[in-house]
């Protein structure tokens, strides 16, 4: 036998693309909805209303924490449990996230009327406009929370495209409804309330899309009220980084904005508006890439498929850096075009813009690295590095640094503070990871624990000969690790029969497809996982006539000769797992 099979990421790369594009479109739709919100408020209700909507933004951040943070945290835990093939646990974690998220949001809705005015009075500006905006968001918070939660879970539960359609439809509906509600309610003095209600109303329209998910046959997550042992601790742990991140961002934004409002006037304020909107531009384009971390990496971490995890993570990291460099180059080469996108009326000289942009833009590569850290580490059950990142860049370093440099160097000081903050956070976090890894016996930037089982990992294309090759290699691998002959042969047999079945029946047309195979040698069990992107096929559901005298069916043979055969449709891939208990010779 001369052919040696090796593991590759070709199968996973296909899934990566099918998750990446919907995720980018989803984030784009959400950010676009927010952008248009500002444009509509400014145009229909005037600059006072626009500033009121900006002022109360921290409150809106906090109100959306249950939906955003539990959506991310819950999706991480659900993905990890699905990767471990614990569907019951995943259903409980899903239900727990929905129940807790909805309970908090209903509470927000219930207290909307009594708290809207006191909260509005905390900010300067027009208190009534602020009150209406806060009131609208609080009243519709259950709808918004439901939308954010269900969208996250749809993506992790084999429906990333549907999730993206849901957000696109919702945000398109929001824009239309916002125009309608503002127009209708403006005359009665409640235009701002109409603008705030439009987000919830848009998601209500988009909820029609979720019906396709809720009635889908491939849906694995169903609501259960038996949420004992639902992994609440894990969910809160995974949620905490996003929740604290959102909360601290809101606080930081509030404090910095107050200072900037006092310090800057005229062109300096226009320039501040221009550079602060740059964050929005980067988040618009990079956010969708980072958004797939919980869905894909969570599942691979649960499966302990470190090869796929590293492969996908590297891609996410470098795509983000690539986008960051491209946007930075665009802004540096065409500063005028950038100003025009935001309609900025800047009367100062272009050299000032360039110098400020240079200093500010170089903070975006470390900014994206820190964003990556915040998203990635909770997914692999390492919340601490993520929390360290969040506290450093949103509170400990940024606040004192920004306030001091704002006073001493004005807008340039603000840009320098952003750069120093991001770079210092990257350095400190990586030093922290170095020591954390030593203590927790993890390795490298991925912070993955060393697997304490021997593992055989290969990918093969849909060539029939490969069924025999992989079978032989698996048997030899098992034998070379002192697995008894019987079990070594049976695990090889399971691989050959399953791969042969996939190659002959799994693919609709003659195409070049890949199958990933992993064998783990546990102390008392062999675990063989076969993953393919052929037509959905659950071999455990195939019924055989047990009374027939003999059978030439490979599937029946391996179903009867192995100790357990399980199947799950994860990441829109067939995942069949065989267990062979070690009985010895």
């Amino acid at each position, binding site marked *: 036998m001369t052919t040696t099979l090796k593991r590759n990421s070709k199968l996973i790369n296909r899934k990566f693309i099918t998750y990446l594009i919907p995720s980018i479109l989803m984030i784009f739709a959400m950010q676009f909805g927010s952008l248009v919100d500002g444009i509509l408020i400014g145009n229909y209700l005037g600059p006072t209303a626009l500033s009121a909507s900006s002022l109360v933004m921290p409150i809106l951040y906090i109100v959306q924490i249950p939906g955003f943070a539990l959506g991310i945290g819950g999706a991480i835990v659900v993905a990890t449990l699905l990767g471990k093939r614990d569907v019951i646990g995943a259903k409980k974690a899903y239900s727990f996230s929905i129940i807790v998220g909805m309970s908090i949001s209903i509470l927000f809705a219930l207290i909307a009327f009594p708290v809207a005015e006191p909260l509005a009075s905390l900010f300067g500006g027009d208190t009534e406009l602020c009150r209406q905006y806060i009131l609208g968001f609080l009243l519709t918070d259950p709808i918004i929370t439901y939308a954010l939660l269900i969208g996250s879970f749809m993506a992790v539960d084999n429906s990333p495209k549907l999730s993206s359609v849901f957000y696109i439809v919702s945000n398109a509906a929001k824009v239309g409804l916002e125009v309608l509600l503002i127009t209708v309610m403006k005359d009665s003095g409640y235009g701002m309330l109409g603008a705030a209600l439009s987000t919830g109303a848009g998601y209500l329209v988009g909820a029609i899309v979720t019906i396709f998910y809720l009635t889908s046959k491939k849906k694995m997550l169903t609501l259960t009220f038996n949420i004992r042992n639902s992994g609440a601790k894990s969910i809160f742990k995974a949620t905490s980084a996003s929740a604290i991140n959102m909360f601290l961002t809101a606080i930081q934004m509030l404090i910095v904005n107050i200072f900037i409002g006092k310090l800057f006037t005229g062109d300096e304020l226009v320039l501040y508006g221009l550079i602060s909107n740059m964050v929005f531009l980067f988040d618009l384009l990079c956010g969708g890439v980072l958004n797939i971390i919980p869905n894909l990496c969570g599942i691979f971490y649960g499966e302990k498929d470190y090869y796929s995890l590293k492969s996908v993570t590297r891609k996410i990291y470098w795509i983000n850096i690539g986008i960051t460099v491209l946007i930075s180059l665009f802004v540096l080469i065409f500063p005028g075009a950038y100003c025009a996108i935001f309609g900025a009326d800047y009367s100062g000289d272009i050299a000032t813009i360039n110098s400020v942009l240079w200093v500010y833009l170089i903070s975006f590569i470390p900014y994206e690295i820190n964003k990556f850290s915040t998203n990635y580490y909770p997914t692999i059950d390492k919340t601490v590095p993520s929390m360290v990142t969040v506290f450093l860049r949103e509170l400990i370093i940024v606040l004192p640094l920004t306030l001091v440099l704002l006073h001493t160097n004005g807008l340039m000081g603000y840009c320098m503070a952003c750069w120093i903050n991001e770079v210092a956070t990257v350095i400190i976090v990586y030093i922290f990871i170095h020591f954390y890894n030593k203590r927790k016996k993890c390795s490298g930037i991925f912070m993955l624990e060393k697997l304490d089982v021997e593992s055989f990992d290969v990918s093969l294309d849909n060539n*029939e*000969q490969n*069924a*025999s090759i992989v*079978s*032989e290699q698996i*048997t030899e691998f098992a034998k070379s690790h002192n697995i008894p*002959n*019987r079990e070594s*042969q*049976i695990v*090889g*047999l399971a691989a*050959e*029969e399953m791969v*042969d079945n996939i190659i002959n029946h799994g693919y609709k047309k003659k195409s070049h497809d890949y199958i990933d195979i992993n064998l783990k040698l546990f102390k008392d069990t062999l675990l063989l996982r076969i993953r393919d992107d052929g037509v959905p096929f659950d071999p455990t559901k195939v019924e055989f006539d047990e009374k*027939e*005298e*003999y*059978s*030439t*069916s*490979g599937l*029946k*043979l391996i179903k*009867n*000769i192995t100790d357990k055969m399980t199947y799950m449709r994860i990441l829109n891939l067939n995942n069949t797992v065989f267990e062979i208990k070690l009985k010895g010779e």
Partner: protein
Amino acid sequence: MEISMKRGEELVVALKGRLDTVTSVEFTDALSKEEIKEAKVIIEAKDLEYISSAGLRALLALKKSLAASNKALEIHNLNPVCQEVFKVTGFNNILTVK
């Protein structure tokens, strides 16, 4: 897989290695080239390490073609793993295993 044949009163086909998706085709090809005059074909399987459903199908096809000319097929000296495969699939009921 190594296939060796010994002619006498019976045709003894000794198999060594694996009878799987690929080698079962080689096995079928090798036997189809032979003119079988003997009344019985014995598959000597003491060195057959492994057999998959493709191998079983090849044996079944051989049995059927031999039966058509009133010839017999016997499988001798299967190792315990191959015996288990025969038992699980019911092939020990339809093939003569010794």
